[in-house]
């Protein structure tokens, strides 16, 4: 059993970007998240490059999901959760008191671990829910966006003939892709994905990974996964978290082939997890 005492902070490297001239979409600075006083994420700083996929890996309970959720202010709804530090999106602090989180959430789409479509709504209504909030009511535009986003989520061919069907009638994998389409429909710039394939069969997983590879041409994607192969397949950068600390954050290839940290090395070799 490896405890937090067995590694020291000095080992932690958290900047995969050699020259700082890169364009960053999001920057998290010294983020600490605690539930009822117990820290779940400790002093994590990360930068996310535009049009790239960043994966967060680590054993369960390491705080990766908690960290991901803070990038969209999803902790606002969790009672007794407290977020310290700074999260910048396009240079604006997400946690500043003056701005309502609604402004940011338009820029950030999120896909959750379990598919959560609105069960009573039709497929069409699910995809357009966010658009209607934003005052888009033109039927023609809505149709166009629905077709577009469903195509991006690789769901269009399967459902194009029954868009009026309630979302619950879809299979688990289809529901998850519907959730991706729903998140894409609000035309976000950042896409957060929390183990989007954890509940899915291999074929559906493959489809979702294809989707991610397609989407990274336009979006900044941050994905949490416990599946290392998946991280290798889809991501450009990978952060390894352990017990609330960000242990190592580098280019994916480097992290997996040449880990600098013992803990990372042990984890990627499958010695614990």
């Amino acid at each position, binding site marked *: 059993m490896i405890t937090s005492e067995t590694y020291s902070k000095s080992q932690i490297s958290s900047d995969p970007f050699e020259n700082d001239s890169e364009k960053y979409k999001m920057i998290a600075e010294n983020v600490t998240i605690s539930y009822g006083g117990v820290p779940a994420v400790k002093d994590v700083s990360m930068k996310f490059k535009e049009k790239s996929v960043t994966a967060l890996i680590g054993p369960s309970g390491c705080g990766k999901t908690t960290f991901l959720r803070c990038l969209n202010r999803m902790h606002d*709804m969790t009672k007794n959760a407290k977020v310290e530090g700074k999260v910048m999106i396009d240079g604006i602090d997400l946690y500043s008191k003056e701005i309502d989180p609604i402004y940011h959430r338009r820029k950030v789409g*999120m896909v959750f671990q379990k598919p959560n*479509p609105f*069960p009573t709504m039709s497929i069409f209504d699910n995809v357009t829910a966010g658009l209607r909030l934003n005052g888009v009511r033109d039927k023609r535009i809505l149709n166009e966006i629905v077709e577009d986003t469903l195509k991006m989520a690789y769901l269009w061919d399967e459902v194009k003939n029954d868009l009026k069907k309630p979302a*619950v009638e879809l299979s688990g994998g289809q529901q998850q892709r519907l959730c991706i389409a729903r998140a894409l429909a*609000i035309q976000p710039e950042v896409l957060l994905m929390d183990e989007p394939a954890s509940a899915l069969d291999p074929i559906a997983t493959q489809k979702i990974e294809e989707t991610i590879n397609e989407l990274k041409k336009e979006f900044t994607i941050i994905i949490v996964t416990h599946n290392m192969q998946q991280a290798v397949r889809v991501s450009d950068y990978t952060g390894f978290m352990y017990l609330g600390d960000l242990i190592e954050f580098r280019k994916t290839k480097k992290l997996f082939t040449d880990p600098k940290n013992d803990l990372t090395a042990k984890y990627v070799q499958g010695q614990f997890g």
Partner: protein
Amino acid sequence: MNYINYIIPLWISDNSYCTLKLLEKILSKKNDRKLDGDKIFKMGATLAGCFVLIVIVLLVFQLITQSYPIWEEEGLSFIIGTDWNAADGRESFGALPYIVGTLVTSALAMAIGVPLSIGIAMFISDAPKKIGAPLGFLVELLAAVPSIIYGLWGLYVFRGFFMNIIEKPLYNTFGDSIWLFSGTPFGLDIFTASIILAIMIIPTVSSVAREVMKAVPQQQKEAAYMLGATKWEMFKLAIFPYSKTGLIGASILGLGRAVGETMAVTMLIGNATGLNAIPESLFDPSQTMSSIIANEFVEASPAGLHLPALIAVALILLGIAMVINIIAHLLVTRMLKVKEGAVNS
């Protein structure tokens, strides 16, 4: 048939222990071997469980047989008739005004009470525990206050206030133009009674509505927030569609309560009889099925048709209440089942 009337009270007063002993005796003689404790235990428990079914059957049976004379005399015109005369020799009974009175007051009470209750449920289900719990407790105290005290308060406190502050201004401004406000405000009318009823159904509707809303999974709310919804939009997107069935069930449960409510209504509705009991405006007195029973039951002579008429009213009331409650229970259970089976299974 009358022996049933004797056995039931006997059976109940002797409570189930004696019934058990009796059963043991009968059965052990038959089988000629001692019954073990477990079998007796199970049998006793089953009997007690079936008690409710027996009571319901007997109750309906009793109401039907005892109201038979009036059905024989009036037939269908008991339901559609409007006259109500208990004087000897001129007896004539029609329950329509009271059915109408019940439906109108209950509907008004629903129109006022249900939105209030859902608002309260929204507030409590969303508030932090420190505020939500005591508040929920306060609202439920409303349920602990006996009906008769609502009546007393309604009669001596609320009526005067309501008549002067709401009814008279309404009458003065709209009395000539809108029929709804055309009666003379007196405070003892369907409007006052409905408002008291509305207050009385709030705890029922709001506590069921709250439970139903709490049953909506967190992931649904997160999905709505993720799309950039405000709190109100989150309710519209995630909570209301998901809990619609349960909310309707909660409201219907409230309707069931309103329909059967007796004392507070009796004290405030003005107790008109016959044709007068069909209200023509909000400020008209009326009469509900339960209030006519409360008012006249003791005076009714079992020899004539008056008592059977009141029992027939009770039968109609029971029928309506039962249908309403069965629908409500089916809806609430269905909603809570949907919760288990939906989305993530």
